[in-house]
């Protein structure tokens, strides 16, 4: 069995090595698949902070993923049509700058998470799941009925947004951007998990009464974690929209929330690199089982059932031989 730190390094190096090998073999599609894994893993890392560390089973994280996507779509569409986003009370222009779009996506999705978290964290258990799901679906139906930005058809962006000094249309360069962002976020989340804040969040997850009696304001700790989680997932949404150069209401749907949750369960709940392993497994299954049968998700269902029943630590847990900090 591998120590978890070593396994994490292996996972990250494999994620880096696959597109580099694909570049050498002139297989751009594999690079795009690896980029997709990286972005979806980033969304999973975001949800994992709330779900794994905080025990907050949010079934509405597609809301932040979609908001990140639409932040990119709206800003980029205004930039490509040379029309301002708004003129009154102050002028806001569109932009094709990735860093500006990322910051916007993080702010918008964090604010949404603050609002949704402030309301939904008053509930717990199945009610929390239902409230977060309801918010996600509200965004979904709003996007469908918003013709200014494509409504049900979504919004196409003809040219990928730019990053200073790089050609983002070159698959390996865009992968590099996504990979670096994933590493930065992983470093941030791992530091956060080891901080007094992260330990308080974990403590509140394990036993809220014990946490209260040592003076931990569990509502505030959970809300802050939920907001950070939403911000990370929003960043992933902006990158995903840039990868596809397309954004649609599907990004908001409960299927998307479910998929992000599946990455975590497959990879290992509360494991720092669990979402990467989970997203990679999901994309590989989708790609190869999808060739075998259009009902590939039936096989995925069996695999998920096996993981939940027999390998609760997910892929990372199975390879390290421990369930780690997963609670339950």
């Amino acid at each position, binding site marked *: 069995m591998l120590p978890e730190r070593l396994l994490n390094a292996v996972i990250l190096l494999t994620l880096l090595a696959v597109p580099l090998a694909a570049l050498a073999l002139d297989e751009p599609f594999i690079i795009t698949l690896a980029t997709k894994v990286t972005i979806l893993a980033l969304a999973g890392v975001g949800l994992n902070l709330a779900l794994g560390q905080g025990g907050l089973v949010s079934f509405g994280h597609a809301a932040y993923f979609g908001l990140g996507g639409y932040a990119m779509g709206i800003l980029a569409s205004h930039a490509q049509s040379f029309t301002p986003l708004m003129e009154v009370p102050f002028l806001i222009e569109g932009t094709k700058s990735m860093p500006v779009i990322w910051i916007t996506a993080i702010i918008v999705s964090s604010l949404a998470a603050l609002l949704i978290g402030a309301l939904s964290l008053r509930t717990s258990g199945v009610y929390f799941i239902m409230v977060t799901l309801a918010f996600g679906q509200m965004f979904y139906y709003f996007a469908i009925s918003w013709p200014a930005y494509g409504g049900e058809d979504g919004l196409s962006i003809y040219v990928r947004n730019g990053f200073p000094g790089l050609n983002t249309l070159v698959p390996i360069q865009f992968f590099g951007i996504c990979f670096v962002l994933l590493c930065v976020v992983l470093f941030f989340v791992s530091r956060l998990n080891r901080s*007094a804040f992260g*330990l*308080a969040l*974990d*403590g509140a997850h*394990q*036993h809220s*009464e*014990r*946490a*209260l*009696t*040592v*003076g*931990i*304001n*569990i509502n505030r700790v959970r809300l802050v974690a939920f907001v950070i989680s939403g911000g990370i997932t929003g960043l992933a949404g902006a990158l995903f929209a840039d990868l596809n150069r397309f954004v649609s209401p599907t990004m908001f749907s409960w299927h998307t929330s479910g998929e992000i949750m599946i990455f975590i369960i497959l990879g290992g709940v509360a494991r720092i690199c669990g979402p990467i392993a989970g997203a990679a497994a999901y994309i590989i299954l989708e790609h190869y089982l999808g060739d075998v049968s259009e009902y590939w998700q039936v096989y995925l269902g069996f695999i998920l059932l096996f993981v939940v029943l027999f390998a609760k630590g997910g892929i990372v847990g199975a390879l390290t031989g421990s369930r780690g*900090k997963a*609670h339950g």
Partner: protein
Amino acid sequence: MSALLDLRGVEASYGASQALFGVDLQVREGELVALMGRNGMGKTTTIKVICRLLKNSAGDVAFAGQDLRSLPSHKAAQLGLGLVPEGRRCFTNLSVWENLYAAARPGAWDLAKVYELFPRLGERADQMAKSLSGGEQQMLAIGRALMTNPRLLILDEATEGLAPVVRQEIWAAIGTLKSTSGLSILVVDKTISELRRIADSAVILERGRSVWQGRIDALTSDLRNKYLGV
């Protein structure tokens, strides 16, 4: 001298079932008070009311001159109430140092001082709490409460279910805390001999009421027989 913790006429219920019918309890600065009574008499319920895990329906609860009735549990803890709950309730999926660090607030107590009081915790700093023995978990629970830098340490059945040698270690630590730190301590325990040795005063609960309060050395064998059955 005014009391650090002051409960007067406290009543409390679990739903329709009333558990406390009038508890009076005072703990002064630097004092060690034993809260005594047979099983089911309301000792843990009184602790829950003090720590605001249960709201009292009548009576006054004040700590350091502040009315606790409107405060949530974490705010009461931040005022300086450090609880060691019944049943060694550590964060089992955190390591020893993580348990201590998660609760830390600025003050005289830090990791080094806790490890000095309980050297075994220092030796097992990176070990998961769930892998500790019962006695070590109890030490960790006390250490975690101390890391909040409390003004009043509340120990609810801190030695229950532990081996005699470990109980002696816990009692020795409580004695050290009393003599060296000047901390106010409220202890719920059934070990009369240790309480008589270490406590300054005692309060006895009988069916949810405080029926006797006074210096521990004034607790005669008649009183012990009448209220504690020993």
